[in-house]
């Protein structure tokens, strides 16, 4: 069945996400169409990277094959092309059914081989030798070979957008070198012990080379992905329904285990309320959401099982440090102080989740207890602004930055979105004492474009929350500042870059924790981010959905059942 939400917006907006997903974790940035960006984790019980088990399937129950799983997603994607499409959480979820990643996370958060059989670093971690699994074929019969992987890598690297997250980390030539049909070498520019995590998401989802060639001729084929996954493409109507059916000669069947579902149908339903109503009406079996307003509803419904994956992204205000007036740290600080973080939490988190002081939740090993996000102090803010405006500063074009003692600024968000507008109003209320706030509601594409091109003052953003904190580097390093920046705030700090290099390659694990906590401090001191809340993903399913946490890697490691809202289906089955 096709279900429609109002204004099902394409996720092309999610440039950030594209790149993010390349680096193995998903983040929806820039104010989505639903209230998703306002959420935060709620469960305060012990953290599990794997999220709570989705079902407590009674032991005696044995998996049965068959059935169609109906999944509600927060959005649709432009296409399912790992080399070019913007795969946000929704996209990655669909992709995880048709594609297999080279590596994937086990329950301890380590990247373990999946489509790859093994990987070996050189002593200095500068060369990684990867061996592919033998005898794997794509849905179109093409065999999986080194060439396929290299072809995809090169196409991806040359993509104007997706490539942005790849280019800076590899040499122009010989980034990936073929040894034989199943063996190849990666030559990253930086040493990293954690290199394989880069191959757990979009960059790791290997598509059929035959299909990639065809794509070049006919971009519409993006809609019909061809991978090696446990499910293969059946049909797709954009913004309405995408249907995959079981791939009966999946390579993993003997090694990992059978795939039970006959088919999966993905329904993009941007409106969280509608998604809720649908699963309650039995129109869906499974959904994901970050709308904390819904959490209680789910808990109250006996027919539903909810697992909260609270290792989500952080929601924060992001400041463009390259552009007056926020090139002055006092102004950034003032903005932070003027912001009523408590009020925000009270209003927009429906009593769920926790406020964020930094990119880690208190129960994370990397949490830095000394770092507190300043805020809720209008007086201090006023003082700083007075000081700044006292110098009546002007920007490059000689435009005055203050008007009658207040700093002129623009708050940008992507609309139309009721919740985003409410948030904008709220901030305006916070800031208007010290700032003349202009509202700049942009449609999603424009919003991302302006962020990427650095033509903004302040935006609401969702990011971070990497499985492996080292992978957040793409947002932070100087090298990612350019025409289009992934270092959105355009904040360059050599010391920070050095720190990141070390984190990627620490002498000992404990030292690593210390370094990361140092990074957290550095982030705070830059005042490029005002942390608001930790968002968290709820994965909700009806009681007939079973076994989605019984995934195993070829080597038998137990795997996570969800990653920041991204779901997997290989081991899922439906009880009758």
């Amino acid at each position, binding site marked *: 069945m096709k279900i429609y939400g109002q204004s099902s917006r394409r996720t092309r907006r999610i440039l950030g996400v594209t790149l993010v997903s390349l680096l193995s974790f998903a983040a929806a940035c820039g104010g989505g169409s639903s209230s998703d960006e306002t959420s935060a984790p709620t469960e305060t019980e012990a953290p599990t990277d794997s999220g709570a088990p989705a079902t407590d399937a009674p032991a005696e129950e044995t998996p049965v094959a068959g059935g169609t799983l109906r999944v509600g997603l927060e959005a649709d994607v432009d296409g399912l092309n790992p080399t070019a499409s913007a795969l946000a959480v929704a996209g990655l979820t669909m992709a995880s059914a048709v594609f297999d990643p080279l590596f994937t996370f086990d329950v301890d958060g380590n990247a373990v081989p999946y489509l790859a059989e093994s990987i070996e670093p050189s002593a200095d971690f500068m060369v990684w030798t990867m061996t592919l699994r033998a005898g794997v074929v794509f849905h179109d019969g093409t065999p999986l070979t080194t060439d396929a992987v290299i072809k995809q890598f090169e196409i991806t690297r040359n993509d104007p957008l997706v490539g942005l997250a790849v280019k800076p980390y590899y040499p122009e030539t010989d980034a990936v070198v073929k040894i034989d049909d199943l063996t190849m070498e990666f030559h990253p520019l930086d040493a990293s012990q954690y290199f394989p995590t880069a191959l757990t998401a979009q960059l790791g989802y290997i598509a059929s080379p035959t299909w990639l060639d065809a794509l070049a001729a006919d971009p519409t084929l993006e809609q019909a992905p061809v991978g090696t996954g446990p499910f293969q493409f059946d049909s797709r109507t954009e913004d309405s329904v995408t249907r995959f059916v079981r791939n009966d000669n999946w390579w993993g069947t003997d090694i990992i285990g059978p795939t039970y579902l006959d088919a999966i149908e993905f329904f993009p339903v941007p409106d969280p309320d509608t998604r809720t109503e649908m699963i309650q009406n039995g129109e869906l079996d499974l959904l994901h959401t970050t709308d904390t307003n819904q959490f209680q509803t789910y808990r109250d419904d006996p027919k539903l099982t909810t697992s909260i994956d609270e290792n989500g992204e952080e929601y924060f205000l992001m400041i463009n440090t390259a552009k007056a007036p926020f090139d002055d740290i006092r102004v950034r600080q003032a903005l932070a102080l003027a912001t009523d973080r408590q009020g925000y939490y009270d*209003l927009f988190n429906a009593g769920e989740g926790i406020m964020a002081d930094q990119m880690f939740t208190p129960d994370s090993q990397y949490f830095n207890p000394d770092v507190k996000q300043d805020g809720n102090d209008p007086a201090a803010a006023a003082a700083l602004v007075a000081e700044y405006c006292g110098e009546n500063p002007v920007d490059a074009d000689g435009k005055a930055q203050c008007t009658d003692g207040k700093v002129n600024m623009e708050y940008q968000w992507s609309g139309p979105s009721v919740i985003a507008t409410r948030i904008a109003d709220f901030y305006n209320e916070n800031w208007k004492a010290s700032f003349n706030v202009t509202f700049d509601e942009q449609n999603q594409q424009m919003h991302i474009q302006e962020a990427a091109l650095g033509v903004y003052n302040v935006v609401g953003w969702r990011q971070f929350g990497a499985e492996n904190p080292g992978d957040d580097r793409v947002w932070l390093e100087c090298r990612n500042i350019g025409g289009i920046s992934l270092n959105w705030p355009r904040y360059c700090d050599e010391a920070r870059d050095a720190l990141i290099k070390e984190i990627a390659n620490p002498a000992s694990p404990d030292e690593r924790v210390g370094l990361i906590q140092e990074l957290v401090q550095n982030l705070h001191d830059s005042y490029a981010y005002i942390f608001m809340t930790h968002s968290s993903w709820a994965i909700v399913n009806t009681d007939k959905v079973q076994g989605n946490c019984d995934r195993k890697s070829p080597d038998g490691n137990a795997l996570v059942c969800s990653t920041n809202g991204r779901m997997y289906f290989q081991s899922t089955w439906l009880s009758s």
Partner: protein
Amino acid sequence: MSATSVTSAPEDIIVSKKLGFGFWLCVTWVGLMAFIAIFASALPLKSPTANFLDSARGRPPYAPSWSHWFGTDKDARDVFSRSMYGARISLTVGFAAITAGFLIGGTLGVISGYYKGWIDRISSFGFIVLLSFPSLVLAILLTSLIDRNLLTVSMVLGLLSIAPVGRLARAATLQYADREFVLAARQIGATNRRIIIKEILPNVAIPMSSLALLGMAVAVVAEGGLAFLGFSVQKGITWGGLIQLGSDASKTLQDAPWIAFFPILMLFLTVLSLNFAGDRLRTFFDVKETTL
């Protein structure tokens, strides 16, 4: 047959040639709204934008209470004062729009009705072109392309009212253009400008003015519609916007209906009053039913 003209429609027996109590009631309501719209900030109203959060007790109850007569919305803002302030944009836009419509459309209509010929043909065609867009579609189209502030939104709605107003003015003018007194004026060599101002306008003005209120009602509704779809004045509090905020999520509408319903009530009463008063005026000056 004068005798039978006495056996007039039962209608006339009901509608006596008085404006009546209802009319004045409606006028009072509109007046009150206008007053609030103008002096809102001077009145002892809570701030419509403030979030009434209490670090100790959190947010105030959603439901109407002594401190918040119409309850509070999702963002702990006072629905009552917001509904009051909502009158501002809604009425201003409504008024500005219809005024603009009357100035431009009225002038065009009178001129084309008086001079006829090519001026008439062109402007009439212009009117039809404007009328061949469903008005809301045109309004959305235009507002989406501009930077939406009080002025621009009013102008867009004003533009929409040009065609209907213009047509009326033209029709009304045509009735008088060839009347004896006009011809007489021409005979004694009065300039066209003089004739239009001295002879035509006074006659056209009366029936037109009686339609102003109806027109304003239409404009207010249109603004509401735009705001409801998110195409009205940015950063502004308007009834349409409040209604949308209260009804956007089914959950809100179900749990806190007043957030949407109080603004609806205000809007409804205002439009009703404008319509009723306008209708009375129309019958009073007995102007024909129109598709304004």
